């Protein structure tokens, strides 16, 4: 059984900087993985490469055995770190778009979650508050039955109640076959949800281990370890 994600020798450099350098990474199916690192460590770059929004400078990236392209986009459900929906459209328009493009999208799940949050599906996206917009995006992304979910900073800048709602949505929609990658710098909040963590530092992988292994070996939380590793 091959890995869900298979990255070899991945480098992404810009004119003056190198965002990722010679990254090798395997991730299996059925894991919830935390992608951790301070700003500028290469988290978003790695995510965008997996989603096909950035092109690597060198190296190979396979998802579910395929190079990044139509086949991988079909199995990846991606939540970007910013609002990416057309504000002029209604939530229903966007749901219809997801129905048409993603075979694994379950509209009932989406409408269910919207109803629980008292969000009117006929509201135009630009009329919603930032927090509500983020929830709508998360609902859309989690209503797919994807093989790989990639969530870029899903809990940054939201209040604790919303944070609990988001984590709850992720857990209760989780399919044991799927893998979820959560990028964040707020480790303490997600730590108990993760199987594994990946620490990125200066565009390289500093650590890739399971949360419980870290706790058993180091006798401290991943959050505490993270603070040590990245102490300035």
């Amino acid at each position, binding site marked *: 059984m091959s890995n869900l994600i298979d990255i070899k020798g991945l480098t992404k450099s810009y004119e003056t900087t190198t965002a990722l350098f010679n990254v090798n990474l395997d991730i299996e199916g059925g894991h919830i993985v935390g992608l951790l690192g301070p700003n500028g460590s290469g988290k978003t770059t790695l995510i965008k490469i997996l989603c096909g*929004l950035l092109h690597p400078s060198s190296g190979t990236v396979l998802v579910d055995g395929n190079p990044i392209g139509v086949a991988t*986009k079909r199995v990846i459900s991606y939540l970007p770190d910013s609002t990416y929906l*057309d504000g002029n459209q209604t939530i229903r*328009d966007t749901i219809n778009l997801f129905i*048409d*493009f993603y075979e694994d999208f379950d509209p009932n799940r989406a409408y269910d979650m919207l109803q629980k949050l008292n969000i009117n599906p006929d509201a135009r996206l630009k009329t919603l508050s930032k927090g509500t917009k983020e929830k709508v995006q998360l609902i859309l992304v989690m209503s797919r039955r994807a093989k790989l979910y990639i969530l870029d900073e899903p809990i940054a800048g939201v209040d604790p109640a919303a944070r609990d709602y988001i984590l709850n949505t992720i857990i209760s929609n989780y399919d044991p076959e799927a893998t979820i990658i959560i990028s964040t710098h707020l480790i303490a909040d997600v730590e108990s949800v993760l199987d594994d963590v990946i620490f990125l530092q200066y565009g390289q992988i500093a650590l890739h281990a399971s949360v419980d292994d870290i706790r058993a070996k180091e006798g401290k939380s991943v959050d505490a370890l993270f603070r040590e590793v990245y102490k300035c």
Partner: protein
Amino acid sequence: MLGKLLKHEIIATWKIFVLLDVITILAGGVVGIFGYNFPDLDRVPEPLAVLLGLGFAGYFVLLVASGLLTLVFIVVRYYRNLYTAQGYLTFTLPATTTEILSSKIIVSFVAELLNFLSIGLSVGLVGLGFAALGMKEYPVDTIQVLEGFRELWFEIFGIDGIGTTCLYIAFMLISILYRIIIFFFAISLGQLWQQHKVLGSVIFYFVINAVLSVVHTLLNIGSGSFSLLFMTTYDTSSQFFERMVTTNTIISLIAVIGMYIGSILITDRKLNLD
């Protein structure tokens, strides 16, 4: 997948395009009806005459605005939907870059064409109103007038049948496509810059335009389109137009294909959404 992309591109844009076109045509109808009832300017008080003048000026501003707004909306939509945060969704759809770009180009082209036709229809309605007013006073044989137009068109442009009509229609269609695809190609080229991508696009737009104008001119001279102007041969007007239109249709078509492929290659190979 192209069908689905087209469907959702239309859903997201048709309201604006149809609204602009309907306003354009309605305005033409109103001005046309007005034209039919146009008073003799010598007999109306001056303030009213000024108002009428302003009304006509307003109508022409509206025509220009209709064309400009349609174009601006097309270009902004293309840029925002592909190369800003919205691109995170657009480029994570399970579709190829060729399909994504093609869907946008097709819908933009149809929108431009409809806008062009609605402006034509609008002006036609105004003309019809004034022509009807004229005919009230000086009745003429409509058939004869149309026949006269046909002859005139033949004299000047050499339009004398299906072949030449098709040539001119092809020229018109290619010109519309050519006009929008320069914008799209410039936007794609702007993406090659690390920073100031919008500024890059604007600069590229002017550069492409300048380069293509030079190419057009040189090839037109080369193909002898301008021989009439240089008095080197004794072409008739229709020969001149036919040759020029043929040359320009071919040049534009090649440029359109080149820029289409270029846009796709740049986006496919070099897409960097930061």
